[in-house]
């Protein structure tokens, strides 16, 4: 009995023990289930994160082409050397880290300590050197195989290369260390250009070594799209060449900008800012004197100043820097007045040299005034009082409406970073005086790009087109993925007003202030501009010229801005119009636009020199006289052996061609005389007398312009040249003025 009772108690206690055990085991099953099911995904994600090595394969960045398919920015294949230090260390018995570091340092031209530090670091991934050329990569590869090195890898990568170095630098922009776009098109179209990178995901153990079994995923990289610009590399080169010349000749303290636009489509054909920089070394300051100044600073200040100078260098003046347009803006005041019919071409005005508005006395740029003049003459003279009067007739409200309509209060939306919207009066504060000064382009600021789009609208029958830089995006097989159509913003003025203005602006170039832009046969229209920077009296000017051609069917619009010229001349008519002329002349010829000469022009037209070498003297003389050319025979021979100038070259009619008839006869040489400050007639006379031929350029070429003077000749006086050589002489109006 006793025994059985004790036995019962024993059993009872055993059941307790069993129950507690089972309870705990059930709890543990619950806990395991919670970890595996409820928190499984999260824990697994974290586990996979530590178990995998994710290597990025860079996608190939798209090419930037000009409108004709010339590559402006390309990506070259290079390789990046990386190390997996844990693997290198594991393998150090086979390939000692010292040996690996020494070899890599030598091949890659790096410091030994730097390399050794990297490959022995407590980490699973280190970049030793980015973007090395194939030649060096091959050397590294050879070293790796020959010495059984483990943990040093070469990853495919790309490097940006700009074949034209500084061409269109501010437009194209450049990329940074990780091939990311930092400026310009490279930045704005970064997403399209860069494509999507691929990845290799492989498993690794806790020591960073890849796991033996297949647990690898490969995601192929997707190459970036190409960007086709509206820029024409050739026209861009013309613009840059002539702006560069102007930059040097006029010693521009704040540089210059130039935009060439197709007025019909709004496509930007060329856009440049000078001085520029080398896209292949965008972080090198180009200005040696600034570099020297920076050397004097201490480290902190230097890096700060360096950054600031770089930003200045990268600044695209054409879209980022607004300026006071000055008289070029009179184009729009005239357009508003003609559109609103508050003025007719023959209305007469009187300029006394100043005009009183409210209590202010506003002066004309010409001291003493222009006297009595028609509206047409007022435009040609760029007379301020005429435009003050016209502005008053338009009225503040309409002026403001047109100003907005022309797009001057908004960004144009061009595909470039940092575009400025311009600065204008608020409606509330736009009173009599503000209206007066605005009428001739002062007291507000717009960007060069806004200015030229406005001019393009005037030239394009009054239709304002949105200026744009990108024609299309294409894939690696050159198939168009996205096409950017030209977009009309709005009709700003009527076709009739546009036609009238084209005629009027052609007058400005034919015999007005803009005659420096005159090109025979191309009917250039345009308007000069000069504005003094604030504060007035500072003596710092912005000279500009906006022109287009041909006036009857405008194909090209060009704006040149010269910021703070410091070599004496500063009027737009003097220094900016010749730059536009050179760019337009080259561009129109390049585009194959046929010149159309007026009757007056035909009289003074150049003629092509016939090739007469090999002919008898008699035949040669008659061939030359057929072209209205004279002959000068050197030597006693019967046949012409050679001639100066050579056949095919354009010279003025009545020029003299020198014919050589004897072999080994000494070439007749002459010294080029000085013709600067002469009129066209006297300059021609001097040059012809010296047995040379003259080519007249600039204002002197226009038959309508009187009172011009030579200011530039090539070759310069004193040069010894062969007789018959052509001397190019540039003329401008004596009367300095806008």
């Amino acid at each position, binding site marked *: 009995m006793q025994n059985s009772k004790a036995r019962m108690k*024993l059993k009872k206690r055993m059941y307790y*023990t069993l129950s507690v055990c089972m309870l705990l*085991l059930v709890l543990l099953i619950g806990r395991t289930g919670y970890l*595996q099911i409820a928190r*499984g*995904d999260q*824990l697994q994600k974290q586990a996979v994160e530590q*178990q995998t090595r994710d290597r990025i394969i860079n996608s190939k960045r798209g090419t930037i082409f000009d409108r004709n398919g010339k590559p402006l920015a390309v990506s070259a294949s290079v390789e990046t050397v990386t190390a997996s230090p844990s693997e290198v260390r594991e393998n150090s018995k086979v390939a000692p880290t010292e040996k690996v570091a020494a070899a890599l340092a030598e091949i890659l031209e790096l410091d030994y300590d730097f390399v050794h530090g990297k490959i022995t670091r407590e980490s699973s991934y280190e970049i030793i050197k980015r973007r090395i050329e194939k030649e060096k990569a091959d050397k590294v590869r050879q070293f790796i195989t020959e010495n059984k090195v483990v943990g040093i890898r070469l990853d495919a990568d790309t490097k940006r290369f700009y074949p034209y170095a500084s061409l269109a630098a501010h437009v194209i922009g450049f990329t940074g260390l990780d091939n990311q776009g930092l400026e310009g098109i490279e930045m704005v179209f970064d997403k399209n250009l860069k494509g999507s990178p691929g990845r290799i995901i492989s*498993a690794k153990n*806790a020591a960073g070594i890849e796991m033996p079994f297949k647990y690898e995923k490969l995601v192929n990289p997707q190459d970036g799209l190409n960007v086709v610009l509206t820029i024409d590399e050739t026209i861009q080169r013309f613009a840059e060449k002539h702006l560069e010349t102007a930059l040097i000749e006029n010693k521009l303290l704040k540089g210059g900008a130039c935009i060439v636009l197709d007025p019909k489509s709004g496509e930007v054909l060329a856009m440049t800012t000078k001085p520029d920089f080398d896209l292949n070394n965008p972080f090198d300051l180009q200005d040696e004197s600034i570099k020297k100044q920076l050397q004097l600073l201490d480290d902190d200040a230097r890096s700060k100043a360096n950054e600031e100078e770089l930003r200045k260098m990268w600044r695209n003046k054409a879209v980022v820097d607004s300026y006071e347009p000055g008289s070029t803006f009179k184009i729009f005041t005239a357009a508003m007045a003609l559109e609103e019919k508050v003025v007719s071409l023959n209305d007469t005005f009187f300029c006394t040299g100043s005009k009183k508005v409210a209590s202010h006395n506003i002066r004309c740029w010409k001291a003493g005034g222009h006297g009595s003049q028609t509206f047409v003459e007022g435009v040609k003279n760029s007379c301020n009082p005429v435009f003050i009067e016209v502005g008053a007739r338009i009225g503040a409200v309409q002026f403001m409406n047109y100003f907005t309509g022309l797009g001057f209060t908004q960004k144009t939306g061009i595909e470039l970073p940092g575009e400025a919207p311009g600065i204008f009066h608020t409606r509330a504060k736009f009173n009599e005086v503000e209206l007066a000064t605005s009428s001739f382009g002062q007291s507000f600021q717009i960007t060069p790009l806004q200015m030229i789009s406005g001019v393009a609208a005037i030239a394009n029958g009054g239709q304002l087109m949105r200026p744009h830089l990108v024609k299309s995006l294409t894939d690696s097989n050159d198939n168009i993925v996205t096409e950017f159509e030209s977009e009309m913003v709005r009709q700003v003025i009527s076709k009739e007003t546009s036609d009238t203005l084209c005629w009027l602006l052609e007058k400005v170039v034919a015999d007005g202030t803009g005659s420096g832009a005159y090109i025979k046969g191309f009917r250039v229209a345009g308007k000069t501009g000069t504005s003094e920077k604030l504060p007035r009296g500072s003596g710092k000017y912005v000279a500009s010229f906006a022109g287009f051609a041909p006036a009857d069917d405008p194909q090209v619009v060009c704006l040149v801005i010269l910021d703070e010229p410091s070599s004496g001349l500063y009027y737009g008519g003097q220094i900016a119009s010749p730059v536009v002329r050179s760019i337009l002349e080259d561009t129109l010829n390049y585009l194959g636009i046929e010149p159309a000469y007026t009757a007056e022009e035909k009289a003074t037209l150049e003629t092509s020199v016939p090739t007469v070498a090999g002919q008898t003297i008699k035949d040669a003389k008659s061939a030359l006289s057929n072209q209205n050319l004279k002959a000068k025979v050197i030597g006693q021979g019967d046949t012409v052996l050679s001639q100066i100038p050579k056949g095919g070259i354009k010279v003025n009619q009545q020029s003299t061609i020198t014919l050589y008839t004897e072999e080994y006869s000494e070439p007749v040489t002459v010294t080029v005389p000085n013709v600067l400050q002469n009129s066209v007639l006297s300059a021609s006379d001097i040059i012809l007398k010296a047995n040379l031929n003259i080519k007249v350029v600039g204002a002197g070429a226009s038959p309508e312009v009187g009172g011009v003077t030579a200011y530039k000749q090539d070759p310069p006086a004193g040069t010894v040249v062969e007789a018959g050589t052509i001397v190019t002489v540039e003329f401008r109006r004596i009367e300095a003025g806008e």
Partner: protein
Amino acid sequence: MKKGQIDFQFLIIVMALLAFGLIMVFSASSESARYNFSNAYFFIQKQIIWAAISIVAMVMLANFDYHRFGKLAFPILLASIIMLVMVIFIGEDIKGGKRWLNLGFASFQPSEVAKIAIIIFFSCSLSKNPGILNKFWRGLVPYLAIIGVFAGLLMCEPHFSGTVVLAGIGLVILFVAGAKGSHLFMLGSPAVVAGWYLIISEEYRWKRITAFLDPFKDKLGDGWQIIQSLYAIGSGGIFGLGLGRSRQKFLYIPEPHNDFIFSILCEELGFIGAMLTILLFAALIWRGIKIAMNAPDTFGSLMAVGITALIAIEVIINIAVVTSSMPVTGMPLPFFSYGGTSLLIIMCCMGIMLNISRHSKS
């Protein structure tokens, strides 16, 4: 006494656990063996040899009448105390504790022997003196004193988890044998206080506690092990990554074939496998208690209870640790964790269980 049939269900469960354990040791150890010894079979080869020896030992003990342990009870107790003293002086220091005695051909932990010694001695002594536990000073206290001596010696190594298991077994036997509830409570409270003091007195133990509370706080330091264990368990999901396909065994979990082998099991076989494993242990414990209940005498009952408690405590603590349900303490999982001598001792215990089952009343 005539010999009856052994408990075949129990034997099948044991053999299933042994086979399962060997498979998991191979799967878990192959990568660290490859990495450290350039031989994926390094650990499993040894373990298979030990498993063979263990089976022989189990069969021998299954045929060795357990009553004969009665005479050996005191000598074994004495021998294990001597070994525990020896290990303090000449033990091999592995990972923060002198726990191993090197016999030349193998090393073993005297603490394992001590557990057996306690089981045999308590069972024997308590069955010879029925009702003694009703007395406090002359009944319960002397047994507790024996536990105290062993615990003191184990803490000298130090070997915290061993102490917990040993004390646990002792207390379970005393409880089943009829220790009074009031006595246990009177003593239990100060024991909890003493345990708490032990925990906070050593910095590494304290660190383990805090690591358990927030393992992700110190990801690369003390929390590392437990986080890696959780990653492995979580990665398994319901169905697991497949046998042999653990990723966490690639050096993430230190010595994946040892204490944390259950995490690898969870990762490879998922919740299904984990649950099955726990149920297998539950079945073993259930059969163990069954054997204890059907034993012909108190000595057999208590010995079966002690051995079952040994397995139960080790399994529960191990799984609780790897699932971050309690602070980390080094506790192997019976049948699964790598280690020859500990496997041998478990299989010896299983032999004793089988022998007790042969004397079953029904």
